């Protein structure tokens, strides 16, 4: 009885202190790199198979940045990203055919409507394809949505010449 208990203790103790490494890594990876998804993103330029100014969903899937529309999808591996940067800009609220229609409004009404605009984030990704060719892609996202993508991609191995700005300390 005693010998059996000692045997179980001797065998069980090392197993208690050394958890299976494969499981630990597999469970840890998604925790450090959660997925980021943003709908209504405009690909301004740089989608080889996707037309300029297409609107779709930008997401981080696995180890790559993915932009998908109803018709096509482009994927960029995080390790192939040479630089990633974020910037701010503004866009008019009234665009396209409606924008031209506003020009016909008399007494400068169209110009007054041009005052309505909203802030957006611009995400620029510079990357290399499998053949070494250099590419650039410019995305326009809702305000404040570009930084999570940059943070996520940098964590996955993307290079960034300008580090992500730390959030401003809260005023006390």
């Amino acid at each position, binding site marked *: 009885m005693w010998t059996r208990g000692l045997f179980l203790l001797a065998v069980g103790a090392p197993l208690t202190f050394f958890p299976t490494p494969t499981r630990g890594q597999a469970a840890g990876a998604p925790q450090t790199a959660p997925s980021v998804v943003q709908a209504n993103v405009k690909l*301004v330029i740089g989608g080889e198979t996707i037309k300029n100014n297409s609107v779709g969903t930008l997401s981080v899937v696995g180890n790559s940045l993915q932009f998908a529309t109803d018709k096509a999808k482009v994927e960029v591996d995080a390790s192939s990203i040479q*630089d990633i*940067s974020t910037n701010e800009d503004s*866009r*008019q609220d009234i665009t396209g055919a409606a924008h031209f229609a506003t020009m016909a409004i008399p007494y400068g009404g169209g110009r007054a409507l*041009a005052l309505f605009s909203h802030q957006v984030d611009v995400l620029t990704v510079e990357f290399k394809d499998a053949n070494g060719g250099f590419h*650039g892609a410019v995305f326009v996202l809702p305000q404040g949505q570009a930084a999570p993508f940059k943070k996520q991609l940098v964590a996955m191995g993307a290079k960034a010449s300008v580090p992500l700005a730390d959030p401003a300390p809260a005023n006390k």
Partner: protein
Amino acid sequence: MSVIFRVVLIGAVLLMAGSLSAQTGSGDSKSAQKLSASSIQIEPTDPGDVPMPPEFRMAVYENLIAQIRKTGKFQHVYRSGDNDAASASDLVTLHTTARAFNKGSQKKREVTTITGSTSMTLNVHITDHAGQVLVDRDVRGKVRFLGENLRATYDFSKKVATIVQNTF
């Protein structure tokens, strides 16, 4: 009367001969200036000392590739770093360096119509395989009234494509 007529006639003949020789001369120089190359490689814009945002640099680069492909002057338009470009025999390379950049405001442009224009001036430099300069010009891209700021990069690329069209 007949003397005046003769003088006028000789003058007219001399003028016509002069203009004809000038035309053929300019035609010869035009055809002599046309260069030939089967491939071109586009390099990303060098911002130099100009604070040009990355989205503008990338838009210039991508627009240049698209517009130069559209000219149909080259069998291959290679991106910077493309491994296949190394095997191209008569490759020319297009470099762009920022000289000036002014980011305007779409809102200002459309409200005032006279302020807020976005403009950029870049040096366009085309070299052959041996490094000899074939084209060296400053080109300006702008958006004055309608359109987003990045449209200046499209305007610039269209002008560069015209230069390429006239050179090759």
